[in-house]
C-alpha cells in the first residue's frame, strides 16, 4: 500500500519548464500551410492520407468489378487489374494507414496527451509532412507516366517487378514506386524522430511512462519499430533501383526472359524477400499497435472504467513489438527459403498470439461490469474487437507453417489480412475520428449519420471478408485477373464473388456519408465544449478547444495521476482528470 501523504499536492512546485522556444507564425501561410504546429501538421497528414486512401478505395471497386463481372468492363484489362491491386495495396498499407496513425494521430495526440507544447523539433516535423506529400505525388505520378504505374503487386518481388512481363516493369512505373517509397522513408524518419523524442523528453511534470495513456504507448512503440524497420524497405528499394537502372545483380539471377538471356546473374530474389518482410512484418504492428492503444482508450472512456490490467497492456505492447522483429519469415514459408526456418518462425509467430490475446481479453474485461455508453467511438471499438478477433484467429492458420502450405497465396490470405490490418484498424480510425473530432474542431459529428456509416461499414466489411476466407479454402488463388476454367471452382463461387463485389460497392459508398458528416459537422455540428466525453486524459483539459498554438496557455499542466481514473469509489464524478491533485479526503486504501 502506498502512503499518500495528505496535501502532498501542495509540495509540487509550479511547472518549472522553461518557456519553450516556439516559433510564432507571422502570416496565414506560416500558420496554415507551412505550419510548424503539430496540430496543423496532423490535419495536413490526415487530409492527404484520406485523400489518397479514397483513390485506393476506388481502385478496390474497379478490381472487385473485374472479379465479379470478368471481361464486362473493357477498360479493366489484365495490365490495369494488376496496376490497381498494386497501387491499392501500397497506398492502403503505407500511405494511408502508416501515415494516418503516426503522422496524423501521432502528431495530434502525442504533444497533447503527454502535456507538451509541441513536438520537440517542429521544423523537422513540418519537413516530414512536405516530404510525405512529395512521396504521395511521386506515387500518383505513376498513373500519368508512360506505361502506367507498376503492376508488380505491393510486395514488388523481383525479378518480376523489373521485367517487361509486368506492367511498368520496364517503364516508369516501378521507378516511381521505388523512388516514392525511398522519399517516404526519409520523410517518415524526420517525423518519427519527433514522435519518439517528444515522448522521451517532452512529457509534462508528473507524466511518468506508466501514467501515459495507452494511445501514446501504442504510437510511441510503433514509431520506434518503424524507425528500425523502414530502413529495410529503403535498402531493398535502393538495391532494386540499382538493379533496374545500373545493371547490378543484387536480386537478379541468370534469367531467360521470353527466350533472351539477360545480362544479370547470381543475384538472390530471396534476399529481397527477407529485406521486404523484415520491414513488412513489423509494418503490420506499426499499424496495429496505435490501433490497440487508441481502442483501449476509447473503450475505457466510454465504458467509464479504467482499462483492465493496464500494466499487462503496456508489457504486451512492448513484447509484441520485440517479437515482431523475429517473425518476418512467416510470410515466406513457401518461398523456397531453407525449410528448417519454418520451425523457428512458426514458433515465434504463434507465441506472439499470447500477448495479443491478452490485449483482447483485457478489452472485453474492461466492458465487464462497466457502464457502457453506446456512443459511436464505443460502437466502432466493439466492431474493432469483433473483426480483430476474427482476423487474428485466422492468423493462427497462416502462422502455423504446415497449415499455411495449402492456404498461402489463396484468397484466404487476402481475407485474413484485410480483416486484421485493413478493416480492424480502419474501424479504429473511424472511432478515433468520432472521438477526437470535437477536440480538433470544437463540434461533435452528427450521430444519426454516424450510425448509418457505422452499421454499413462494420457489417458490410464483415460480409465482404468473412465469406472470402472460404474461397481461399476452396483453393482460389489470389492475384488472379480471372479464375477462368478450373476443375475445382464451382459456379456457386462466382455467385459469392458477385455478392462480395456488391457489398464492397455499398461499403465504399457509405464512406460518402462519413465525408459529408466531416464537412457538414464542421459548420453545423453540435458545440462540443472542452470535454464532451468527460475523459481524464490531458488533451481534454486544454484551456481552449480547439487547443491554441502552444496547447496550454501560460502554464504547462502538472500530472497527478494515471490516465484511467474512471468511476473511482468515493469520487464525486465518475472521472478524475489527470491534472487533478489528490486531496486529503480521498484515500485509496479501500480499493485493493
Amino acid at each position, binding site marked *: 500500500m502506498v502512503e499518500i501523504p495528505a496535501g502532498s499536492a501542495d509540495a509540487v512546485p509550479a511547472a518549472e519548464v522553461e518557456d519553450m522556444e516556439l516559433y510564432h507564425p507571422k502570416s496565414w501561410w506560416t500558420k496554415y500551410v507551412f505550419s510548424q504546429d503539430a496540430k496543423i501538421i496532423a490535419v495536413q497528414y490526415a487530409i492527404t492520407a484520406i485523400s489518397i486512401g479514397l483513390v485506393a478505395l476506388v481502385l478496390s471497386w474497379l478490381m472487385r468489378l473485374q472479379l465479379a463481372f470478368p471481361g464486362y468492363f473493357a477498360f479493366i484489362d489484365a495490365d490495369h487489374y494488376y496496376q490497381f491491386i498494386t497501387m491499392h495495396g501500397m497506398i492502403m498499407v503505407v500511405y494511408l494507414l502508416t501515415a494516418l496513425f503516426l503522422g496524423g494521430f501521432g502528431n495530434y495526440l502525442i504533444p497533447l496527451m503527454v502535456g507538451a507544447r509541441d513536438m520537440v523539433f517542429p521544423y523537422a516535423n513540418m519537413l516530414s509532412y512536405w516530404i510525405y506529400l512529395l512521396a504521395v505525388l511521386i506515387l500518383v505520378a505513376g498513373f500519368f507516366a508512360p506505361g502506367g504505374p507498376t503492376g508488380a503487386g505491393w510486395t514488388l518481388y523481383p525479378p518480376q517487378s523489373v521485367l517487361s512481363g509486368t506492367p511498368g516493369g520496364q517503364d516508369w512505373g516501378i521507378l516511381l514506386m521505388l523512388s516514392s517509397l525511398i522519399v517516404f522513408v526519409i520523410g517518415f524518419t524526420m517525423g518519427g524522430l519527433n514522435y519518439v523524442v517528444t515522448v522521451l523528453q517532452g512529457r509534462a511534470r508528473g507524466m511518468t511512462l506508466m501514467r501515459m495513456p495507452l494511445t501514446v504507448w501504442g504510437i510511441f512503440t510503433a514509431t520506434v519499430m518503424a524507425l528500425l524497420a523502414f530502413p529495410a524497405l529503403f535498402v531493398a528499394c535502393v538495391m532494386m533501383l540499382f538493379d533496374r537502372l545500373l545493371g547490378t545483380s543484387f536480386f537478379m539471377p541468370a534469367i531467360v*526472359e521470353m527466350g533472351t538471356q539477360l545480362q544479370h546473374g547470381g*543475384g538472390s530474389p530471396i534476399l529481397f524477400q527477407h529485406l521486404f518482410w523484415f520491414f513488412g512484418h513489423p509494418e503490420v504492428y506499426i499499424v496495429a499497435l496505435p490501433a490497440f492503444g487508441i481502442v483501449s482508450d476509447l473503450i475505457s472512456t466510454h465504458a467509464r472504467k479504467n482499462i483492465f*490490467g493496464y500494466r499487462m497492456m503496456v508489457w504486451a505492447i512492448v513484447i509484441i513489438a520485440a517479437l515482431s522483429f523475429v517473425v518476418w519469415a512467416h510470410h515466406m514459408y513457401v518461398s523456397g527459403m531453407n525449410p528448417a526456418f519454418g520451425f523457428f518462425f512458426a514458433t515465434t509467430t504463434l507465441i506472439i498470439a499470447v500477448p495479443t490475446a491478452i490485449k483482447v481479453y483485457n478489452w472485453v*474485461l474492461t466492458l465487464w461490469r462497466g457502464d457502457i455508453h453506446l456512443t459511436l467511438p464505443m460502437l466502432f471499438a466493439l466492431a474493432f474487437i*469483433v473483426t480483430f478477433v476474427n482476423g487474428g484467429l485466422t492468423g493462427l492458420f497462416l502462422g502455423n507453417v504446415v497449415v499455411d502450405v495449402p492456404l498461402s497465396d489463396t484468397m484466404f490470405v487476402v481475407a485474413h489480412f484485410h480483416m486484421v490490418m485493413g478493416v480492424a484498424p480502419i474501424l479504429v480510425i473511424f472511432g478515433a475520428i468520432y472521438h477526437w473530432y470535437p477536440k480538433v474542431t470544437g463540434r461533435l459529428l452528427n450521430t444519426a449519420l454516424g450510425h448509418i456509416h457505422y452499421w454499413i461499414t462494420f457489417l458490410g466489411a464483415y460480409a465482404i471478408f468473412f465469406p472470402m476466407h472460404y474461397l481461399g479454402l476452396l483453393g482460389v*488463388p489470389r492475384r488472379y485477373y480471372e479464375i477462368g476454367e478450373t476443375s475445382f471452382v464451382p459456379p456457386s463461387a462466382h455467385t459469392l464473388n458477385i455478392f462480395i463485389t456488391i457489398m464492397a460497392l455499398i461499403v465504399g459508398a457509405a464512406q460518402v456519408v462519413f465525408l459529408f458528416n466531416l464537412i457538414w459537422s464542421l459548420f453545423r455540428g453540435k458545440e462540443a465544449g472542452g470535454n464532451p466525453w468527460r475523459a481524464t486524459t490531458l488533451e481534454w483539459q486544454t484551456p481552449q478547444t480547439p487547443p491554441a498554438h502552444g496547447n496550454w496557455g501560460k502554464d504547462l499542466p502538472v500530472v497527478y495521476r494515471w490516465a484511467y481514473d474512471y468511476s473511482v469509489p468515493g469520487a464525486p464524478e465518475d472521472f478524475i482528470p489527470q491534472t487533478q491533485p489528490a486531496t486529503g479526503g480521498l484515500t485509496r486504501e479501500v480499493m485493493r
Partner: protein
Amino acid sequence: MAVVLILALLVVGSVLFHLLSPWWWTPIASNWTYIDNTLIATFWITGVVFVAVVSFIAYCVWRFRHKPGNRAAYEPENRKLELLLASGTAVGVAAMLVPGLFVWNQFITVPNDAAPVEVVSQQWLWSFRLPGADGKLGRSETRDITPENPLGVNKNDTAGLDDVIIEGGELHLPVGKPVHILLRSIDVLHDFYVPEFRAKMDMIPGMITYFWFTPTRTGTFDILCAELCGVGHPQMRGTVVVEEAEAYQAWLAQQQTFTQLLASAEPQPAN
C-alpha cells in the same frame, strides 16, 4: 439493444455459414491428410474462441449498458484471472503448434524412395523433366538455355542425356509412389500449385526448391501458378494426370528424351 442482437446474429451467422457453406476444400488426392487434420483442429480451437469472445461482448453490452444512476466497478487488474487466461491461451496455441511442427517435419523430409520429377516454369508455361532409365536427373543451368535446349540441361552430363523432356505438355504421375518435386524457374518467381495435393512451393530462378507427396488417387488435376508472375499469371495452367503404373509406363515410353530432342533439332540449320 440492436447492438446485442446484431452481435449475437453475427456469431450465429458466422457459425451457420461455416457449417452450411458449399465452399470447402477440394477432395484431397495426396498423402497430406495430416495438413487437413491440423487445419480442422485449428478451426475448432479458433471457432470456440471466436464464439466465446463475441458472445461475451454481446453479453457485456446487454448487461452493463449505461442506465441512469449506474456506475462502473473499479478494478484496476486481476493478476490471477489474467495469468489464467494467458496460460489457457498458451495451451491452445501449443495444441495447434506442436502437431503442426511434427507435420512440417514430415513435409520437409523427403523419403529415400521418392522419384525425382523436375518442374520448370517460365512466363507462362509449365515444362517437366523426368529421369530416364538411370533414375537420375542431369545437371542444368539457366545459362545453357537455347532454343534447342529449352530447359538448359547440361549436354556434357551423361546422367541428363536420357532425361525425358516435356515442354508445355501434361505431366503424368504413377499413383501410390512418392514423388520428389524439384522446382526450377528460368525467369521470375512462380509457384507450383495443385489444390488437390495441398502441397505447394515457390519456384525461384537461380535455385532449386522442392517438396514431396504421394498421389493417392487417380484423376486429372489442374496445375495453377500461385505466385504473381506478370500479366499472364492467371493463364499459366498445366495438367497433371495421376494414373495406374501400367498406364504411366505406357505414357512414359512415348515421351521424348533429351538426346532425341537434340537430334531432332540438329538437322535443321540455324537461320
